[in-house]
């Protein structure tokens, strides 16, 4: 997943911070089916047992990048079976699946808040020794 250098927020998020942010996001609406937060290297948090989220999430972001002339910041695909959302914020990315007919702007706003929360709760980089 290529990182977006223009909007680099923070390069890391802790698993605990991402997990808390994902849980909070998932609890916001009954229409939420699941979500995952990941960075370029690994899955940080996901609904359920987490299996399959990393590959499926990356695949959606890659498809979004392939559809645009530059790296996609976010994407929304509405199907008959549900709706898929992907959002990139710096090095972090988040995907979510909802029921049909949700308000996309609200979902994206909540996803942005969750990613910011995950980045905020990451441990500060260790200070270099003097």
């Amino acid at each position, binding site marked *: 997943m290529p990182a977006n250098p223009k909007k680099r927020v923070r390069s890391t998020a802790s698993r605990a911070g991402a997990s808390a942010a994902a849980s909070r996001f998932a609890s916001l609406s009954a229409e939420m089916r699941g979500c995952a937060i990941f960075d370029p290297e690994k899955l940080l948090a996901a609904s359920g047992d987490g299996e399959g989220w990393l590959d499926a999430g990356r*695949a959606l972001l890659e498809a*979004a990048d392939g559809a645009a002339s530059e790296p*996609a*910041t976010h994407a929304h695909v509405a199907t008959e*079976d549900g709706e898929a959302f992907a959002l990139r914020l710096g090095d972090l990315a988040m*995907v979510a699946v909802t029921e049909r*007919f949700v308000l996309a702007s609200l979902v994206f706003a909540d996803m942005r808040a969750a990613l910011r929360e995950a980045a905020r709760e990451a441990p500060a980089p260790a200070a270099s020794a003097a």
Partner: protein
Amino acid sequence: MQKPHRLVLDRMTGYADEAAAYLRRRRLTRKPFARVYTEGGGGATHASDTDQGRALFLAAARLIDTAR
């Protein structure tokens, strides 16, 4: 002349009716779509019969299956 509270109530009921009708129309008329947004704030819709659209719908279907 109607009492003021009745006027407000009627107006609120009218708004609610309009909102409900809007949501009904939205559910009936909305078809599957794929939209991708980029840094500049621009967004593009990709039809499912294009290569990009097909890739987006396939990836979304896989993600939706993961959430089951």
